[in-house]
């Protein structure tokens, strides 16, 4: 099937002309034009200028709304971006054919490999990559308009990383939506209602205090330490895997992990003392068998409500 970009160059230029304008210094325009080699993507200088003006106006060059950015602020904003990737993505979203050719040459095969790595299956990976390509070409419509996910790329990270994250998002969302879907005729997966949980006996008072102290201590942990604890104890990631995600050395993760555990322990001790236990009683409570505790660590670590992000995920 012949697939073409969602818009022609003329319509894209017309669409770009509709965005709010921002006064961009001509010397900065020339400098940015030379730096990002936008002509390789088939963009004219006018198209390039329209794209970067739109990007700067959409984020007001990283400043609060209402503030008019100076030339230095504009330069700092644009230099902090992956402007080459951003221009390519915007050109693709605008329907520039030469930009699409360059995009496919750069990212087609890596994207398939990434999808296969994410799904762990060649078939699923190719399906995932194919569905993303369909969306990137603007085959999906929302409210009667074709939408291209590339338009949501803001250039803070690399375009390749953004594509990987998009693939991972789609795969995770697909799995989370479908993991409860069971075939009806499968006798092995026939619905088996769980047995009612036995009523727990009243736990000792000190264990109840310990539960609350631990919950409070985890809630007061720093975000990074809670992430480390969750990644290690809940997700089962190794120190090396966590280090790769955070782009630090494995030893650094180990050191931070020990520090986080010590802080949790000290905080629990403090909470127990605050609850009226003596030091010796608090130490004895800490030595209790974890199986006696009515604690769900996963629930504790996940209980804190994350801050809602205003940015919408790409659908």
């Amino acid at each position, binding site marked *: 099937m012949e697939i073409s970009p969602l818009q022609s160059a003329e319509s894209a230029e017309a669409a770009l002309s509709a965005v709010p304008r921002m006064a961009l210094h001509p010397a900065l325009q020339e400098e940015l034009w030379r730096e990002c080699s936008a002509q390789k993507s088939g963009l004219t200088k006018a198209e390039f200028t329209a794209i970067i003006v739109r990007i700067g106006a959409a984020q007001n060059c990283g400043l609060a709304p209402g503030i008019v950015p100076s030339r230095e602020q504009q330069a700092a904003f644009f230099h902090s971006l992956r402007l080459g990737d951003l221009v390519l993505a915007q050109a693709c979203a605008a329907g520039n054919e030469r930009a699409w050719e360059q995009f496919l040459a750069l990212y087609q095969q890596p994207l398939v490999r990434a999808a296969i*790595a994410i799904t762990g299956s060649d078939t699923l990976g190719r399906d995932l990559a194919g569905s993303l390509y369909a969306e990137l070409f603007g085959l999906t419509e929302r409210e009667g308009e074709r939408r291209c996910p590339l338009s949501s790329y803001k250039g803070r990270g690399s375009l390749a990383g953004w594509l*990987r994250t998009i693939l991972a998002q789609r795969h*995770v969302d697909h799995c989370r939506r479908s993991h409860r879907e069971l075939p009806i005729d499968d006798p092995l997966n026939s619905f088996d209602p769980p047995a009612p949980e036995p009523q727990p006996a009243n736990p000792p008072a000190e264990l109840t205090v310990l539960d609350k102290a631990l919950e409070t201590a985890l809630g007061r942990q720093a975000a990074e330490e809670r992430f480390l604890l969750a990644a290690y104890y809940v997700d089962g990631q190794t120190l090396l895997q966590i280090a790769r995600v955070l782009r630090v050395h494995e030893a650094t993760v180990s050191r931070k992990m020990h520090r986080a555990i010590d802080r949790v322990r000290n905080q629990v001790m403090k909470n127990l003392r605050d609850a009226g236990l003596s030091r010796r009683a608090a130490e004895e409570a800490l030595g209790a068998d974890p199986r006696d505790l009515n604690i769900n660590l996963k629930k504790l*670590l996940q209980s804190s409500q*994350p801050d809602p*992000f205003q940015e919408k995920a790409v659908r």
Partner: protein
Amino acid sequence: MNYTLQPDLHPDADLLNAFAEQVLPEREQARVFGHIAACSRCRQILYLAQEAAEVMEAPARVAAARPEGEKKAWFAGWRVTWVPAAGFAALIAAAITLHFRPAPQPPEVAKAIVPEMGATTNPSIRPPASPETVRTSTPSVPANARGVADSTAQRESEAEPESPASPPTVVGASNLSSAQPQPVPPPPSGSGQGFTAQPVPQKSNPETAVDAWQQERQRAMEAISAHADAAAKATQAKMHSTVEHMASSGASAYNAAATKMQIQSAPTGGFATSPAPRISGPTAARLALPSGLTPVSLVTAQNQVLAIDQGGTLFVSDDSGKSWVAVERQWTGKPLQVRLRRSSSGAGVFAAQAHGDAGQASTSAPSSTVPSFEMVNDGGEVWISRDGRAWKPR
């Protein structure tokens, strides 16, 4: 509310990717940390994106490490296996070498044993090792043993001066390749006759090895003695014919040939440089001087032959050695060498002729010239004579 299924509550892909690439400012990074610490979905996205990044970046790293167009060597994949394979091959080679290596033999040494008086004149009792014999038998003697033999002989020569009663008859293997007379080691006292090469046990108990080596050497010498005689005869005949040919071919050609032969036979300067000239066994055996001693020097001029025996007596023969006359002593000291001297016309250049291989030096004068003889004593003094009978100091 199950917020994990609410996409509006999660950071978008751009923010998550910026967080993973560590390009967010601290405030935004802490905010994302706070979210992913409680959001398993976003953590899963980060983990999967990280796995995909490693897969995507691996081929790029390989391509960057190897320039385009550069082919990978076919053995590159076998690089690790070369090490144990080489070690195994070395072990096998060492085992084969140890298995087939011959048993070490004791070093051997050549030892000169002086024959008894009159032994050389008796054809039935010849010196057991002619130079040819020694040459033939030397391959079984290690080089270091030969060196030891020479050095041993040299030490013995220095320790005990030459004795007229026990003339040296045999040289070591190092003297075989040259007609130049060499110092001869004196015989050890009480030793038997003939040449024996004796093994030298390494610095201890030489007697057992000496006996074994002596027996082996004796057998070898007996086996090749016939070949040695034949070779000596052939060499002598050849040299005589060469001299006669030169004598008849004119003075200039003779001079050139004689000079060449002199160079070949006396690389160290001629007869005068050798204090103790030696003679070969076969030559000594064929010359029967009236004294019964072995001649140490002889010279021939036409049919006249002059010879000095080991006792220092000068004999002259006018019939090519068939009959000998002892010359009355007219000189001082012990005569050691007799030779031809240049005549006034310059035609009587002596030609060194090697008889045998042991360094016997004798001279022959061209038949067309008047012979003139010189005799050198042990003090280096020279006497001259025209007929070999009347001598006067030079």
